[in-house]
């Protein structure tokens, strides 16, 4: 392929040649001839044998890259295929030259734009000897969740003067997944008043299988010997057993707003980023408490993961959250209407949304409250993100903030546990605020 430099030199040579003949100026013709020779020499022996200058038409050429790059291959290895946000992936790229000719190669391993190269380099200029291989190692930092793919590997070979070059894309791809970052939560203050493992509605604060101590009672036949409290037996002379508080095993529904407006703000600081991180943290907490967690994301469509428990469910939810894209503008009301028939009455519902550009928010949450659902809304404030990024001036911010406060008060008066989640606030603090602590 001709570079800009060779194209300009070529044009200059043609112009000089013609001008030389017109003006009968042999100096001009000589300069043109020297330039032509330069170009020809580079094309002929520059170890790249350009397709265009080899006299073959591109469509007749079986290998796009030409001879020079046909013997170059690449392989890639990642240290991990699944990481969390702000995690690092070490990449090892193995470049091989199968030919008997040494090559000067420019190699660029394509890395997704949002990632940062922490160590090493993904762009290398190297001299790769005949039948040699080399390893290129670098580390990328992954600050944002998502499905990512490394590759292809772009390889370029050019003559020493940079007049002609050949490029080839080695289609070596490695996919990996970046899960949302999780915050360790000690308590979410969210418990179902209607646990699900027993038939019928049974309030919690009842003895049952669980992990927390509830009370002591006398031993009855059939009680496990492991639950006998020997200290109490020593004091009272009667066999006493520990009773534990039944865990509030319940269905938790997390609704994540993934509409296009949720991505308002900088790429790394917007409502969707905060919502997915919160959803991941909450899922982990509830699943560790043996609750069943289901998740609903809505944007251009409503995607739900049915309630389930266990570490597999955590992986499924994290994967779904990693792939959540800000798209569409489905109203919350539509989501509520869709999921209402499928969730147990009284299940805690956690909504993660910036509450913007959705006229149905009040009505949708009122529907939940009307059916006695315990609704918690954590609303990452896009206003703050925009204001911090200096994309919103003070007046606009104040006006919008007032409107947002009014909306939040309105939702709060519906009985919704709501918190205006400011960017620097920890999730646990926001949750505590929402639950009135």
């Amino acid at each position, binding site marked *: 392929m001709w570079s800009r430099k060779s194209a300009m030199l070529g044009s200059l040579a043609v112009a000089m040649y013609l001008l030389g003949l017109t003006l009968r100026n042999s100096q001009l013709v000589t300069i043109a001839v*020297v330039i032509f*020779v330069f170009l020809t020499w580079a094309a002929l022996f520059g170890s790249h044998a350009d397709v265009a200058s080899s006299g073959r038409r591109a469509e007749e050429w079986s290998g796009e890259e030409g001879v020079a790059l046909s013997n170059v291959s690449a392989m890639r290895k990642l240290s991990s295929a699944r990481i969390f946000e702000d995690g690092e992936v070490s990449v090892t790229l193995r470049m091989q030259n199968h030919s*008997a000719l040494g090559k000067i190669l420019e190699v660029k391993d394509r890395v997704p734009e949002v990632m940062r190269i922490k160590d090493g380099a993904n762009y290398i*200029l190297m001299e790769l000897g005949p039948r040699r291989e080399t390893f290129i190692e670098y580390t990328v930092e992954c600050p944002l969740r998502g499905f990512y793919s490394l590759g292809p590997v772009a390889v370029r070979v050019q003559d020493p003067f940079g007049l002609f070059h050949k490029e080839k894309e080695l289609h070596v791809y490695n996919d990996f997944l970046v899960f949302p970052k999780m915050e360790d939560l000690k308590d979410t203050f969210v418990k179902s008043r209607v646990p699900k493992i027993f038939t019928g509605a049974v309030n919690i604060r009842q003895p049952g299988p669980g992990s927390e101590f509830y009370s002591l009672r006398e031993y009855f036949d059939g009680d496990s010997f492991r639950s006998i409290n020997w200290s109490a037996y020593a004091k009272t002379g009667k066999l006493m057993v520990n009773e534990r508080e039944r865990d509030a095993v319940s269905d938790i529904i997390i609704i994540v707003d993934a509409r296009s407006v949720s991505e308002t703000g900088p790429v790394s600081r917007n409502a969707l980023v905060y919502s997915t991180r919160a959803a991941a943290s909450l899922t982990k907490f509830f699943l560790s408490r043996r609750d069943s967690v289901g998740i609903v994301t809505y944007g251009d469509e409503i995607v739900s993961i049915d309630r389930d428990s266990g570490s597999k469910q955590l992986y499924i939810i994290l994967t779904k959250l990693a792939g959540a894209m800000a798209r569409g503008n489905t109203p919350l009301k539509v989501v509520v209407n869709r999921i209402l028939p499928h969730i147990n009455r009284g299940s805690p519902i956690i909504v993660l949304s910036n509450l913007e550009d959705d*006229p149905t928010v009040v009505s949708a949450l009122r529907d939940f409250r009307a059916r006695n659902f315990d609704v918690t809304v954590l609303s990452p404030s896009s206003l703050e993100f925009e204001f911090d990024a200096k994309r919103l*001036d003070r007046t606009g911010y104040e006006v919008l903030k007032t409107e947002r406060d009014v909306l939040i008060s309105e939702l709060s008066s519906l009985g919704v546990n709501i918190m205006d989640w400011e960017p620097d606030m920890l999730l646990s603090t926001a949750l505590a605020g929402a639950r009135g602590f």
Partner: protein
Amino acid sequence: MATKSGDTSHLYDGKTVRSAAPSRKKLAGQMSAGSDIPKDAVPTVEIPSFIESLLGGPLVPKMKFLPADKMVQNLQLGCYGVLIGLGILTYIVTPAVGTIWFAITGSITIANIIQLMVVIGAVSSGFWGVMGRDARYLLASYVLFILSVLRFASSKVSLSQDLFGFADNDFLLTILVVVYAVLLVMFFELSNGVLRFSMLDTSIRTREVYVMNVKKIVSRYHRSLIINPIIAGSLAMVVLSANTILPAFVSLFSEQTAVRMSESVELISVYGVALGSLFVFLIVGGLFLLDMPTHLQSWRENKD
């Protein structure tokens, strides 16, 4: 704070349900009295100038170079040397007769002064461009050098200064012109190399690119800097010696025709050069048609 009661819907019967906050875009469009859209909210769009779009990109890279390393300094030194030689040769092989300024002014003295100024300007801007690694000055230098050679020459190579009697010997005259042409092309290449290697060096030092085996890469470039001018000069000599080579070839068949050819005005003029270049490039074109570069490359790639 949140009420813990059950059904609260009765509280809102008949109440107007408000929408959420309006979009900021809409608000920004409606706001007045000094509440314009913040400047940084509008993405910066760089529209290339007309010339840049013709050239397919920015003429001058926005990249700031770090101080020159040894390799770049050597190239700069080489460039200065070539510039001095080129300046002298340009002045010698491009007399003011036949230049644009001679045609405009009609005075050989004025034309001489202007021609000298053009050459000095070309050398100075070349120096400045190489020293400051500024492509704009280099471009100006290229243009001035080309401008100085644009002259109506009546097919004959004439010299403004002939201290060593080159004009009396056609072969020496040809060598002089070829050396001049090679030096000009070398200046193009070396000055371009200064910028290219400055960019590379900056990229290496800012860790944008990693270079393995720098010495080998640089030595290949140095080797090419020596080999290519020799090849180009030799081939140009062949082309320019058409008036000698062609009669010599024809003399195999007819001595008389060969003598007539060698004395022919056309063959010793620029048209002879054109004919020579036509022959040479016909051969080169033939090599390309036979796909020699690919065959050569395949052979080199696959040999044991």
